[in-house]
């Protein structure tokens, strides 16, 4: 990510509020700048994750190909599939996308729907290896047309002789009851067949890339006798994926998988427990204790806790002057992460994220520890005036008593935060592989220390 070369110097400032203000207002009276339905959505690189969720990480298109050996037919106006060439550059995604472009006449007559079964058959015939599954991806226009894609997919299955499933890249519904990333999980897990239950099998639902294999979550589960811990991303083929149907229970690590877990509970009688990703050691410990209680087992849930806490304390000791700017394009809840570092004694300059109802607890806790921390919305129009790199507006606006800001070393956490501070120390922490538990905190702290040391070396060299 590059720094903005054309600085805006208008004297105008981006709108923001302190965590103290937001904690006092509460979720019911959240200012309009944090409510995306109340303003136009600013389209900066920092807001890319919102405006184009598939541009980085997993959006519907990449997630839709989670089943090994599957291919995707995107049925849409040309613009919807335009950025797919970027995904095809990722290893494992080459030659897996096909396109059926919709014209104006198709929109009026819906004749494109009749072509889909034949197109699927032609694609299957053209593949060197027979695909395990064809995902048919449709977009906003079909959402508006009310297309029954389930029926179309059934016709395509008959024509091609392999499973065909719909996936809905409906940006229009992403803040609705069933956003696209919820639906895609439902669609994929709907393929799991009824299997004989095995007590020693557990599924991790939620992510399309693996959970860090070094997370203590795995050893905790293994210690209570779990032999098979399956994730969609680690299944080598569709047969292994189908074995996810034998699980004794599911652990839901991302709330977007909750609807799919509900479906599996109804259809295959696999119960589930939902976990959150925390970085605060005490919060991690409490969650593990609660999980043990729900499973009716006993385990040493503090396993790994001291190593993570020691790492955090060592970071504070080695670099007491670090100040954090925390974004939302990160494998974390930005507010929980801010609280974790605040609790460890670090200063938090700012957070880039719209507060959600579930963030109320963190905002209140942050208000007690760091009331002047400012909260920005990446999507709000006045963010065009955020003064890259200088942080001056923060000093004047928020740091009257004890300026945190430019006197200390600023570390950005999250790719979007890095965008605003091109000359500071960056830890993106947004890899596909998903950190979890104490190990997540330990590795994050290590990544920060590594970045700070790298910056020091760079400064010495120059």
């Amino acid at each position: 990510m590059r720094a903005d070369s054309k600085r805006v110097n208008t004297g105008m400032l981006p709108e923001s509020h302190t965590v103290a203000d937001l904690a006092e207002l509460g979720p019911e009276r959240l200012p309009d700048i944090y409510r995306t339905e109340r303003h136009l959505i600013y389209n900066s690189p920092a807001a890319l994750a919102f405006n184009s969720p598939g541009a980085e990480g997993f959006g519907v298109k990449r997630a839709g190909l989670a089943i090994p050996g599957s291919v995707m037919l995107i049925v849409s106006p040309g613009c919807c599939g335009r950025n797919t060439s970027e995904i095809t550059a990722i290893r494992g995604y080459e030659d897996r996308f096909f396109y059926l472009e919709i014209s104006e006449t198709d929109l009026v007559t819906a004749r494109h729907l009749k072509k889909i079964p034949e197109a699927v058959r032609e694609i299957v015939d053209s593949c060197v290896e027979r695909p395990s599954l064809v995902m048919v991806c449709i977009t906003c226009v079909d959402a508006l047309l009310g297309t029954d894609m389930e029926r179309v997919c059934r016709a395509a299955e008959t024509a091609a002789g392999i499973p065909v499933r719909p996936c809905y890249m409906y940006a229009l519904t992403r803040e609705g009851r069933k956003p696209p990333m919820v639906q895609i999980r439902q669609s994929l897990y709907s393929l799991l067949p009824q299997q004989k239950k095995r007590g020693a099998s557990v599924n991790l639902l939620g992510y399309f890339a693996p959970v860090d294999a070094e997370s203590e979550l795995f050893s905790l589960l293994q210690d209570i006798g779990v032999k098979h811990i399956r994730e969609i991303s680690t299944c080598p083929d569709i047969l292994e994926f189908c074995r996810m149907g034998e699980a004794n229970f599911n652990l839901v690590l991302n709330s977007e998988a909750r609807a799919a877990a509900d479906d599996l509970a109804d259809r295959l009688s696999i119960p589930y427990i939902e976990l959150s990703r925390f970085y605060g050691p005490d919060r991690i410990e409490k969650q593990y204790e609660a999980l043990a209680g729900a499973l009716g087992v006993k385990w040493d849930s503090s396993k790994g806790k001291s190593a993570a806490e020691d790492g955090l304390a060592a970071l504070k000791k080695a670099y007491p002057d670090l100040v954090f700017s925390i974004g939302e394009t990160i494998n974390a809840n930005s507010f929980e992460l801010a609280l974790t570092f605040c609790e460890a004694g670090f200063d938090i300059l700012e957070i880039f994220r719209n507060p959600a109802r579930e963030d109320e607890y963190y905002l209140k806790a942050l208000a007690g520890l760091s009331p002047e921390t400012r909260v920005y919305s990446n999507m709000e129009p006045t963010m065009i005036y955020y003064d890259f790199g200088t942080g001056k507006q923060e000093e004047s606006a928020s740091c009257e008593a004890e300026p945190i800001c430019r006197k200390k070393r600023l570390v950005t956490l999250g790719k979007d935060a890095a965008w605003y501070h091109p000359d500071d120390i960056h830890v993106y922490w947004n890899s596909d592989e998903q950190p979890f538990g104490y190990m997540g905190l330990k590795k994050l702290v290590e990544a920060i220390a590594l970045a700070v040391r790298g910056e020091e070396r760079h400064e010495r060299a120059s």
Partner: protein
Amino acid sequence: MKGLRKALTPFAPDQSGAVSVLYSLGGIIVIIDAGGCAGNICGFDEPRWSSERSAVFSAGLRDMDAVMGRDRLLIKKTVDCVRKLKANFVAFVGTPVPAVIGTDFSALKRMLDQKLSELSLPPLPVLAIPTDGMHTFDRGESLAYLSLLQELAERNLFAAIPVDEKRVGLFGVSPLDLPEYDADRKRISAALRREGFSKIIFYGADADFSAYRNAPANVLNIAVSEDGVAACSFLQEKFKTPYRVDFPGADDYLKILFPDSGQPDTGNTAEAENLPGGAQSILIVNSSVFAQSLGKAILQYLPTADVTIASWFASKNENVFRLREEDDFTRLVTEQKSEIIMADEVQKKLIPDYSGTFIHIPEFALSGKRRA
């Protein structure tokens, strides 16, 4: 099957073309979409996005906005934005959603005009660009140029200044138009300096809003791509500014074909006897004006060459073979027996058995790859 793509990814859409023209002009650009289109336009098709800020917004439509046709809400959000930001104009850019629900773009323009007036806010040029994501970028560029120029004319915003004999205006030169955006602007500038021009205005590239207002000062306009023709034609009608359709400096690409071709920069080229490898037939696939200019340069250099020009994008020139389906390209290469192909190498996938010489000339609007 018609419309089925197995090798090529979708081309740059019209909405990207429209934004590309307007990107650097200091306007508020409202893409009427749910978010994904705005993300694609900027995050993928707009190379300036990572280095140059522009007030590009998504309307952030949700399903009920589309179902209920909440134009007033869109106008309210836009007015809020106008109050908060400094802007030269407001542009509404269409996507598939407004195309499906039948958004009346001229009504949006009227509503915003009226609202600004009611609130005693300064009037702003308002552009209504009904792109739909189902056409290619060249249509969007053409619409954006024309919409802006027409709006300036309607509001009497063109400067009353004399013609400058050293000033030339180029249309159809956005990052989506040019094979090599930075290098091509240098090539074009060098060629036009040789013609005696010292003020070279790249409309749709780095020209600012005032350059459009000062367009009457251009002594000549050049449509470097087909999508610049309508703008040149408008300015000819309005100010009697002559124009030509040409890609100045295209002969610089001869260096790729003929490394020993002398100094195209000075026009000092010698004739060759053969194409590389003794070939006689060559197929050029790219934006039609560029491809024709390059073809012309090749023929000047090697009059006996058999040059075929093709393009995936619209061309009014009937000598340009229009490609529409993947099979069209495969068939053309086979039928023409092209010994050399100059095209974006993403098309190699369509001719796996081709044994001739394939020379890569990027075409980002086609391939979606900046570096193939």
